[in-house]
């Protein structure tokens, strides 16, 4: 067993510097690497390019990095619900590349799986396809999209073992598995870190080969963005 455990978030983020490109898992605020984000804020690294489906809200998630102006460029599919983000984008302080959600996921997967590029129908005929190679297959048009290149992936799982094997919960899985092994270094934080041999190999979502560092996360807030309930009749 190759042990991937690091004892804390400081060690997990060793080697992070200004100008790096990062992938961060999560959909909205669900499944975001809360501990890694807090540490990025504490370290104060700047001019980051962040690949993440969303940009958090004003005071949580990637919004915390935006507040400190640590992000130079965001690559996302949906960035509503964040006033500071909108202000920085409209004033030109923040560069933003919006891409279709499925393309975002697949560009991560391509990096993970060794594909330099792929064709997708998403965005054909729209401004997303401007300047990109297009090609017809069986009468339908497709756009060539490239694998991401990034330095660190920060993902959050429900359970993990010290070998780096990961299990996700519910819809907090989202982009996290796609980003594992898609950067030079993948850092996984988990709600529950267990010894090797504890998790059933049949139930592993992401094998440890895609993870370089794993640590036991702390103080998860797991904030709900849109608490929606029904009444008992």
């Amino acid at each position, binding site marked *: 067993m190759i042990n991937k455990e690091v004892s804390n978030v400081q060690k997990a983020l060793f080697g992070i510097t200004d100008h790096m490109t990062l992938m961060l898992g999560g*959909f*909205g*605020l*669900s*499944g975001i690497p809360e501990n890694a984000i807090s540490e990025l804020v504490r370290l104060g690294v700047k001019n980051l390019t962040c690949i993440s*489906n969303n940009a958090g809200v004003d005071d949580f998630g990637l919004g915390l990095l935006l507040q400190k102006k640590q992000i130079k460029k965001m690559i*996302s*599919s*949906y*960035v*509503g619900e964040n006033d500071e983000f*909108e202000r920085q*984008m409209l004033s030109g302080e923040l560069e*933003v590349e*919006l*891409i*279709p*959600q*499925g*393309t*975002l*996921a*697949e560009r*991560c*997967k391509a990096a993970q799986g060794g594909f330099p590029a792929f064709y*997708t*129908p*998403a*965005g*054909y*005929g*729209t*401004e*997303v396809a401007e300047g990109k190679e297009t090609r017809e297959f069986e009468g339908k048009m497709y756009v060539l999209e490239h694998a991401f290149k990034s330095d660190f992936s920060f993902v959050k799982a*429900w359970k993990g073992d010290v070998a780096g094997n990961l299990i*996700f*919960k*519910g*819809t*907090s*899985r*989202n*982009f*996290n*598995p*796609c980003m594992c092994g898609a950067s030079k270094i993948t850092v996984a934080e988990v709600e529950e870190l267990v010894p090797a041999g504890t998790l059933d190999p049949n139930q592993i*979502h992401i094998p440890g080969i895609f993870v370089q560092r794993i640590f036991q996360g702390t103080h998860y807030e*797991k*904030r*709900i*963005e*849109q*608490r*929606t*309930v*029904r*009444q*008992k009749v």
Partner: protein
Amino acid sequence: MLDKIGIAKRLAKELKDGYYVNLGIGIPTLVANYVPEGIAVEFQSENGVLGMGPFPFEGEEDADVINAGKQTITTLAGASFFDSALSFSMIRGKHVHLTILGAMEVAENGDIANWKIPGKMVKGMGGAMDLVASAENIIVAMMHTNKNGESKLLKRCTLPLTGVGCIKKIVTNLAVLEVTSNGFKLLEKAPGVSVDDIKKATEGTLLVEGDIPEIVF
């Protein structure tokens, strides 16, 4: 004229037994409340769930179980969770049978715009571009006119496009229309709405053939 609930009820008639369905944010989400009796459908949310159920009871919300609108949800028997890449494989791979989504503009050639107003609103396309580029059965649910009373059914879209030539059917507060090679074909009109009302509210070519039936639920 239909309200949002009325639009959702009419849309629910498009559901067929055995359909996997992706519902967009807003009016489309309401469709899940009006699934016709006796048919089995499963709702997919692109953030990674099939078999979505109703909102949870108070106190039973789970931050790890949400829909694409980031609302807390529940799951039904037979549900499954998956990652974002697999989710869009379901969509691009045409495994999802029906997509219902909102729009700011639809053109008579089937183009749709729903993600950006240059200089004013930039929230992003989310999964909409993947959905409209792939699905064969796409229905738009929207108000016939915008807040300024201007038609949203146009000869050509004026806003940045989400997809080209992809919309087949539209359900609005005034009418049900089909996109044909000659323009918007009026299929049904809402209760209390005349064909003239619909003509006035439609900037694009409106095709009216014979008597137009009233929408029934």
